[in-house]
């Protein structure tokens, strides 16, 4: 189990290297806010509601019941199968910068007392790109969900396939889809949560294969990149294009759920879909300061 998961509160979002009193500026509305207050607000701008990105660690910290997360396959790490120029260096840099082994954390845990298999992608690690490691770990956690008859919850945040692994990264779309197909055939629930941004190969595989698909407000969601589309159609796209709200209108996702309501919404859906419950003595009360569990948009 990772260190930060032992922390008692949503304060787990806080980064060790930021001293109290530091200000953060919202990239959307420009408001400045104490970093500490931003963190307390689950990194949602108190002024405009802008959702700052979370790392995989932070995501799990604000989602999983305290003390219940058990990481799996932490030792699965990337090689450089194509000997792709610069890839080894990029991997090293990303590991140093983020402290993570690759772009996904997977494991078993509980959300609001429901036992689940979990995965969280990390955009901070090489843009959350899906190479063999992300594919392998998603496939394994889906298989583990089948084995233990648990629901699967995946938080996606990814720029797409990791081109430095060439066609092997493309094949992760098929590998993860095959594992998700087995989950569906086992009649287990799969909740997919799209966070900012979820694009490319991840959308064209597991992110769009959920029984229920949720998204955070304002998250960019789409297959092709905005620039490529603009070059193709020779027009500027509206700001609204490829946002979570746009996808909701176009019938592609089930709901847009603000971060403070996400945990309660997942909990409600997991209970609905019959997730096994933690024994009562293990169930943990929602941490102090949590937003009321009043559901999504």
């Amino acid at each position, binding site marked *: 189990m990772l260190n930060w998961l032992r922390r008692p509160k949503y304060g787990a979002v806080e980064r060790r290297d930021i001293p109290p009193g530091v200000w953060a500026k919202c990239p959307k509305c420009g408001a400045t806010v104490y970093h500490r207050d931003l963190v307390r607000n689950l990194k949602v701008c108190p002024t405009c509601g802008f959702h700052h990105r979370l790392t995989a660690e932070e995501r799990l910290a604000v989602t999983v019941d305290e003390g219940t997360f058990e990481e799996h396959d932490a*030792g699965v790490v990337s090689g450089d199968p194509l*000997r792709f120029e610069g890839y080894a260096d990029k991997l090293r840099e990303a590991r140093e910068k983020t402290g993570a082994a690759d772009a996904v954390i997977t494991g078993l845990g509980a959300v609001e007392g429901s036992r689940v298999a979990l995965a969280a992608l990390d955009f901070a690690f090489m843009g959350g790109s899906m190479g063999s490691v992300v594919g392998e770990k998603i*496939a394994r956690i889906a298989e583990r969900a089948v084995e233990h008859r648990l629901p699967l919850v995946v938080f996606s945040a990814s720029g797409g396939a990791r081109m430095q692994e060439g*066609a092997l990264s493309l094949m992760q779309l098929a590998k993860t*889809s095959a594992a998700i197909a087995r989950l569906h055939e086992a009649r287990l629930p799969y909740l997919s949560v799209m966070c900012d941004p979820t694009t490319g190969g991840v959308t064209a*595989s597991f992110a769009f294969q959920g029984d229920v698909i949720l998204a955070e407000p304002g998250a960019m969601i789409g*297959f092709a990149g905005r620039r490529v589309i603009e070059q193709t159609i020779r*027009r500027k796209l509206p700001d609204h294009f490829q946002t979570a709200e746009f996808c909701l209108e*176009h019938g*592609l996702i089930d709901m847009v759920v603000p971060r403070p309501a996400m945990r309660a919404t997942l909990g409600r859906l997991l209970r609905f879909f019959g997730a096994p419950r933690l024994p009562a003595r293990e169930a943990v009360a929602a941490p102090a300061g949590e937003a009321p569990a009043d559901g999504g948009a």
Partner: protein
Amino acid sequence: MSAILPERDRAAEARAQELEARLAELSREIAGLRRRGEKEQLDVGRLIGDLEARADELRRELLDLRPAWQAVALARHPQRPKAQEIVAALIEEFTELHGDRLFRDDPALLAGVGWFDGRPVVAIAPRKGRDTRENLAFNFGMPYPEGYRKALRAMKLAEKFGYPVLSVVDTPAAYPGDAAEERGQAEAIARNILEMTRLRTPIAVVITGEGGSGGALAVAVGDAVLMLEHAIYTVIPPEGCAAILWRDAGRSREAAAALRLTASDLVALGVVDEIIPEPPGGAHLDPAAAIAAVGEVLRRHLRAAAGVPVETLLQRRYAKYRAMGYHEERA
């Protein structure tokens, strides 16, 4: 599963650049000679013949040195046999089916039924045009979501009757347009890939030209994935890769090599099961022979699949895709 590939040869790349420079020079010389011959009424035919023979030699050497970029060029060659020609040549009594039953018939994706090797099959194929008019009609081989949904409908028909699916793949990409996004391009591809991993009937795929990323994979999950010798299959076009990595689309050749997108690379990586040899110089020089070769290999694979119980087939298919990729394990 796949081992790490050997490093590429940097000396070879230097030699290739030298060859390209000399080819460009030769081409200028030939053009100059021709102009002079016309102006001064000289017989330069023989001289030009010699220079062209020399250029051919250099091109062959270049092909050996830089198979990736040559494959890109050949895979995109305008005279390369088109998916619809392959379908028409191989499938008897072909009847095209239209529409996704939801929104639109996408001409960029051909679907239909007919007979192959004496058995009924369902065929799907993204389709490029043979001329400008067709290219516009077929959207340069780039399907919309409705194209993928039509393909899925055809595959479900195959599943209902236990007929094999034959997928012929030559597409640069799923269409990257705003309307395609609005109608769920990602969802359509994701759904096809998932359904193909569990479709209860044999699927044989042959990549005949460009295997362009998710847009290709959406019709390319199969029990047998075959590839014409000079076809390519890649997660991103080399131009896009170069633009992202080096902010220089001019370095596409390097990117092509780095991406390991040739048939032999993909066999080495465990992504493709078998290479179908092309006629000397490429499929466009003898389309009939190329198509016959495709037919022969497909026939062998479909015959082999015909005897396999569907549960076994599905387990093998799962195991095959489950094993794709390369990672290491730390304690």
